[in-house]
């Protein structure tokens, strides 16, 4: 890998040393072993909770939130350093629904009461969140959503269905987009509501992914009641909130870090002293790996330039770059998982779901490094689909960047 040299101020250098010392102490070998067995889009519920708690205790659970709301208050460079160091160490990929999606929405649109109640609980990990946007007939075309809510006194009554809801099985709260009006354009009748998962009438059905992992769910609402105070923003103005959140979802600004973490995993699979070192000696495989590394370096440079622009107060290309980065990150991630699967060859045929997600015992006949690649490959097919599919990102770029 080519390292990108950040020009660090003395404070930022000191900060980097802090992060390194923290990771060296807190990211223990046991946690590392658990993290290495993760194949999902996000680390599973138990590991996520554990790592989140450790970050919380250090005051780093929400790197991007302002200090006033209990965040770490990192500046853009520090966030970058933090993500990069975590990726190098191989820390778990934490779910985004609470800290990265709901939190910023509440900070931007929430009432003082909502902020006071929810933000500390997101930070502490007391509330795990999930995202209720998609519905069976509303995927890429989100505005087609039909899950509806009507006012009844000082309550909303919700009826309908959400689907593909990541980690609903671990969540305490769900934020949902609901239809509160059928007048005017579809976007004008949508509201953003906060719903406790234990509300009467709310039920969850698991959807098992093709890897055998249980990541996503259907969530059903049958006369679910929440107080009007759970509305975020104004009634029928939820689309603005939704879009604000989608932009955050698309551009994390730390795609290169995410990919470097995955490259680290791949490196372990093909390590010199392991049974799959042969892959790395194959010139075709080695060439594919080199190409990926170069693309990651380009992405990192691009993210870094964006960071400098943001630091200077320029935001002009921000949205365009968010789509470009989403496209890149998802494609490169998929290419990395293809290399993982190709490295282990025939062992890819063995179903490791019972070992990874159940109570199955790993076989002594199968090298431990062959456990995760297939599930990782299968799970990562989703990355070009969610958060705005690759086709949708290209549509956005055609319009926004090329004026087509």
């Amino acid at each position, binding site marked *: 890998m080519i390292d990108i040299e950040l020009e660090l101020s003395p404070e930022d250098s000191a900060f980097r040393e802090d992060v390194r010392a923290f990771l060296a102490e807190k990211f223990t070998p046991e946690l590392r072993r658990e993290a290495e067995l993760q194949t999902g889009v996000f680390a599973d519920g138990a590991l996520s909770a554990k790592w989140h708690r450790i970050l919380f205790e250090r005051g780093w659970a929400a790197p991007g939130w302002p200090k006033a709301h209990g965040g770490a208050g990192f500046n853009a460079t520090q966030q970058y350093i933090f993500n990069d160091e975590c990726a190098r160490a191989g820390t778990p990929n934490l779910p985004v629904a609470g800290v990265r999606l709901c939190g910023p929405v509440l900070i931007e649109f929430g009432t003082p009461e909502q902020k006071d109640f929810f933000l500390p609980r997101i930070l502490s990990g007391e509330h795990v969140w999930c995202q209720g946007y*998609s519905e069976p*007939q509303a*995927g*890429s*075309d989100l505005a*087609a959503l039909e899950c509806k809510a009507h006012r009844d006194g000082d309550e909303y009554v919700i009826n309908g269905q959400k*689907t*593909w809801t990541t980690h609903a099985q671990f969540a305490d709260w769900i934020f949902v987009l609901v239809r509160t009006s059928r007048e005017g354009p579809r976007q004008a009748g949508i509201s953003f509501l906060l719903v406790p998962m234990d509300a009467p009438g709310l039920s969850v059905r698991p*959807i*098992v*992914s*093709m890897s*055998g992992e249980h990541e*996503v769910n259907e969530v059903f609402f049958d006369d679910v009641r929440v107080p009007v105070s759970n509305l975020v923003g104004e009634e029928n103005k939820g689309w603005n909130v939704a879009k604000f959140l989608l932009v955050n979802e698309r551009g994390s600004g730390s795609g290169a870090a995410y990919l470097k973490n995955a490259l680290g995993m791949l490196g372990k699979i093909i390590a010199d002293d392991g049974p799959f070192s*042969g892959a790395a000696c*194959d010139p*075709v*495989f080695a060439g594919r790996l080199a190409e990926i590394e170069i693309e990651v370096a380009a992405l990192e440079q691009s993210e870094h330039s964006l960071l400098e622009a943001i630091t200077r107060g320029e935001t002009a290309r921000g949205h365009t770059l968010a789509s470009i980065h989403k496209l890149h990150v998802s494609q490169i991630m998929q290419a990395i998982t*293809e290399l993982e*699967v*190709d490295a282990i*060859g*025939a*062992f*890819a*045929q*063995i*179903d490791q779901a*019972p070992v990874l997600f159940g109570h199955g015992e790993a*076989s002594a*006949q199968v090298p431990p490094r062959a456990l995760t690649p*297939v599930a990782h*490959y*299968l*799970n990562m*097919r*989703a990355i*070009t*689909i*969610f958060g705005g*599919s*690759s*086709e949708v990102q*290209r549509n956005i770029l055609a319009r926004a960047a090329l004026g087509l």
Partner: protein
Amino acid sequence: MQQTDEQRELLASLRELVERVLGDRHESLCGAGFSSETWQTLGGELGLLAASLPEAMGGMAAGQEADAILMEAFGKHLVSQPYLSSVVMAAALLDVSDDAGSQHLAAAAQGEAILVPALADSPSDTQFACVETVATITDNEVLLQGSKVLVRDAPLADRFIVLARQDGAADCPHVLLILDADVPGISREDFGTIDAATGSHLRFDQVRLDRSAIVVRGSEALERAALATDSAIVAVCAEAIGVMQAMLEQTVEYAKQRVQFGQPIAGFQVLQHRMVDMSVAIEQAESITRLARGKLLTPDRAKAASAAMALVAKACRGVAQDAVQIHGAVGIADETPISRYFRRALAIEKQFGGKAYHLKRYMQSADTF
């Protein structure tokens, strides 16, 4: 590969029969639901499993063409076991002209016995060195010791056909043995596969066999293992065509009925092109597979088989990825059929060495066609 009218008619009727039969029976042939009763019906009552075998064995003598038709249909219906092991490979390993061989094969063709080859010691043993599996042959018995990692279909086996190295024979050390799956000393560690079939890691611990277990010794044993593997490669390529055709059909169908932004997503040109690319890849895969089938009994066999496997592996990957992408989130759910085809396509890629291995073998084989 010129076919007579009569052969063509025979093959057409075979295709029709197998489609009809699998249409309402495939549930009991897939994965954990495998029913040996249904398998016997396919063999004995319907005579499908013998189609490729000589008439003397109750077959239609339709050879590789019959294998291809059956495998393609199995692919379409996700029946990933155990025809490839029990008929395609077994027929190349056993000698139809000798009594014992033809009896074993006839039983396999009737669906009464399932024969499972265990040739390479492990996935990395591509040259069948078989250093771990040793047979000590004495005047009155054979003693088998060793292990085989990753043997597909092994839990279904009534008999194993095992390639071993003869203790003390330096020049042509190989021997091919056939043995009952329940002989004392054989132990299995079973696993499920991503494509809902099964397999085992096998151990042979002081397995004592009668000398009649010997199928063939010396270079012929090795040659048969190589032929069986290339035959299996060409057959699994035909299965891949069925798998990919099913994925294309289901994807086109889904795209026509899935509405987003007020129109079926099939109307988006970028998806149309993607589906067209899928069909082009399948066409290419079909052609190279037909070519390889025609070369199976020629000196170009290995090169042609690798050419087919390399291209089919590439097609499998691309077509499967496109199919899931066009399905959106629905495509990643285990309960959606497309995800099961996706996993079968991936297993096919890896079953006999992946694309990189076959490209290498293609480049290393003498250039004759």
